[in-house]
């Protein structure tokens, strides 16, 4: 049970406080309700580039990191297709330093041209490091644009191409900031060795006077239900053939999400999972295989990906995956296998909740989803799923017309 208090400032900033006096530290987590899905298709990668700019100085404070480090703190941030999250941890005595820093960059950035030009380069190097200069680095660019034809999940957080990042200008930066980085679109979570009264007073003092901003009304093009299976074959200078297949699944808050989470665990979670045992160990068609899902807020994807043992044809590999999928749809999952997945879920949640930072992040996430109390209801949602549910959802997800297959052929070069 994770306890918290919640209040809302007059400018719409939602504040959650999670007290844990067993730690000497305080965590301040600010989540903004904007991610890569909110980008203009011609300016992709912007939400993430913007995250970098949040460290380039705010209206009264030339450098974010330095005063935080001086107060004994550390920080980081990440951007996903759905949201942008900033978090820092520092000795609880110095909590107010984090309020000062975070509120000033919510009030306004300095919009420095120098910071923009440097961070464009830094992000381009990040793009190269993770997506261009790595074997198989473009797999998910290809797969996303195959599986999504309307929804902005069709591009990755880093952006569609380097050019989009290179062309970002200061006017884009300002417009994005005043549209998305307003109190009304943000969630503040303060956790650790803190008191709710103290947080209330600090939140009023530092965030209370920031103009509310316009609530952001998200109206994204939704992905139509896929009717026909899609397939893409391509070649690349990699050593091994890779097989990737995805299927559309339910949105984050739908019951189907929990079922999909358990289905991917049965297929791909650990050394006793079905795909690993059948395809890596018994049939030896794949040298590795994974099954997981995107965990996205809007309807996401279930994915299976693996590298083929040399000499195995793509067709045989695909057939063997299909056979395992078919089994999920046709044969009811044995009760002990369901129990295994439930036990694993219980354990995952307990380990995640060990760190204050992770608890703060989860609280922000559930608040963003609409209800922070969900944090204490998740396990029950998994517990109530039956083997019948899993079979029914397997049939829904793995419906033939719902799939996208990528044959990524090695040229051997």
């Amino acid at each position, binding site marked *: 049970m994770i306890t918290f208090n919640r209040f809302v400032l007059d400018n719409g900033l939602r504040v959650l406080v999670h007290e*844990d006096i067993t*730690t*000497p*530290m305080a965590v301040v987590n600010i989540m903004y309700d904007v991610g890569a899905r909110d980008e203009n298709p011609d300016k992709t990668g912007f939400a993430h580039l913007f995250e970098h700019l949040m460290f380039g100085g705010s209206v*009264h404070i030339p450098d974010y*990191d*330095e*005063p935080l*480090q*001086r*107060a*004994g*703190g*550390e920080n980081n941030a990440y951007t996903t297709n759905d949201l942008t999250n900033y978090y820092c*941890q*520092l*000795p609880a*005595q*110095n909590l107010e*330093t984090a309020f*000062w820093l975070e*509120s000033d960059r919510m009030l306004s950035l300095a919009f420095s041209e120098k910071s923009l*030009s*440097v*961070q*464009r*380069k*830094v992000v381009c*190097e990040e793009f*190269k*490091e993770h997506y261009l*200069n790595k*074997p*198989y680095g473009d797999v998910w660019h290809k797969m996303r644009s195959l599986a999504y034809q309307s929804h902005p999940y069709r591009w990755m957080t880093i952006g569609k191409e380097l050019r989009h990042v290179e062309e970002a200008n200061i006017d884009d930066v300002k417009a994005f900031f005043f549209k998305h980085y307003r109190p009304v679109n943000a969630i503040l979570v303060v956790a650790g060795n803190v008191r709710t009264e103290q947080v209330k007073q600090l939140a009023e003092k*530092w965030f209370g*006077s920031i103009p509310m901003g316009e609530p952001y009304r998200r109206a994204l093009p939704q992905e139509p239900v896929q009717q026909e299976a899609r397939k893409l074959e391509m070649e690349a*200078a*990699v*050593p*091994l053939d890779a097989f990737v297949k995805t299927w559309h699944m339910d949105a984050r808050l739908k019951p189907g999400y929990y079922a999909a989470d358990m289905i991917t665990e049965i297929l791909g979670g*650990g*050394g*006793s999972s079905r795909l690993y*045992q059948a395809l*890596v*160990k018994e049939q030896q068609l794949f*040298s590795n295989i994974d099954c997981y899902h995107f965990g996205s807020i809007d309807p996401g994807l279930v994915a299976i990906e693996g*590298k083929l*043992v040399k000499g195995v044809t793509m067709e045989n590999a695909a057939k063997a995956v299909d056979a395992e999928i078919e089994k999920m749809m046709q044969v009811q999952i044995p009760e002990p296998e369901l*129990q*295994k997945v439930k*036990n694993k*879920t*219980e*354990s*995952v949640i*307990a*380990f995640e*909740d*060990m760190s204050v930072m992770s608890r703060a992040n989860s609280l922000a996430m559930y608040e963003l989803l609409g209800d922070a109390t969900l944090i204490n209801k998740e396990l029950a949602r998994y517990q109530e799923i039956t083997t019948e549910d899993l079979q029914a959802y397997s049939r829904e997800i793995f419906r033939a017309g719902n799939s996208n297959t990528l044959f990524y052929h090695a040229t051997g070069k």
Partner: protein
Amino acid sequence: MLNRNLAPDITNAVDLDLKLRPLTTHTLKNQVPVYTVDGGAQDVVMVEWVFYAGNWYEQKNIVAATTNFMLKNGTKSRSAFAINEYFEFYGAYLNRSCYNETATITLHCLSKHLAELLPVVAELITESVFPQEELAIYKQNQKQRLEVNLRKCDFIANRLIDEYLFGFDHPYGKYTSTLDYDQLDRVELEAFYQQFYQNGRCKIFAAGKLPADTVGMIDRIFGELPLNRQEMPKVQHPVLPAAEKKYRIINDEQGVQGAIRLAMPFPNRHHPDFPKVQVLNNIFGGFFGSRLMSNIREDKGYTYGIHSYLQNHIHHSAWMVSTEAGRDVCEATITEVYKEMQVLRDEAVDAEELELVRNYMIGSLLGDLDGPFQIISRWKTYLLNGLDENYFYNSIHTIRTITAPELQALANQYLQPDNFYELVVV
């Protein structure tokens, strides 16, 4: 009226009273030590078995790593699948890792399942059989994985820089080839297993919310095993550093980035300069606000990240600078690294920067000691390196009191370009 130009008052982190929570030591019937840190809010535990079974003790490349990996791949009475199924049914994670001096088995689980799981861990230590079929699959898949990794400039660079520092025949400098996998024989694994696991030397670490009688339970299951009886072989490996200092390697003609490594040999944690150089290293490239990050990422935009650190080895360390930079700015990056060394040699660190680094290091230490897993992990490092809590308090004392002239003297002693190996892999 709120003055946003004015930073709130802070408590200097250096003034915080940091304590390393003591750990409790127990000894099993067979003299195996068990170290525990009890506590935490969640009902979870971690138990780690540390064996002196790293590649320091192998006669042939990758025997230690393969033996360690295959501990989960079959015992007299359980198949690899059955072992995985058993642990995963309880939602437990059983990992194994092989390092240079040591190799470990680590169990993470809900406290309530510990009693069910410990006997099967004991089975892995006493009854592993290394099935031929499992070894064949392992070889095939590892060879394929290696082939993919060999396309990555950072992977190549990490292997080569260690080879330059220590020599290919040293456990810290050697790496794996396809041929090594082909030449592995299960008989070698069995022999290594018998000597270094079944009859090996072991230390056990347990942390988290420990169920009542955890140590008694461990004693009943592990205290009867023939561990910690035989003397370990006294193995010495001469360090044979490369004579040539500068390397430029093209691994991928089309590569758009280069992996840069600059490194110099450095003594281990027992050297009195080690904790002092940790402070100098932080200023140089040890955190986001370091000189290298500020200059090469935040001013020039040559890279997504650049870091320096002291390698975490028991016998000998090395001081390493590591980054991936745009192909056309690799040489410029190296020039800037040397420039930053020179500034540290020529100019004393100013009071404000030094105060910031002191606070940052203490604050980060405080955060690192948050929770039983973190506390035992620090203790484990100390014990495996032959240190005790004095090392912790001495490090804190150093962070609080080291002076700018001392740091400058250290920079002059160590941060000399001639000391460094220099490598770029595109």
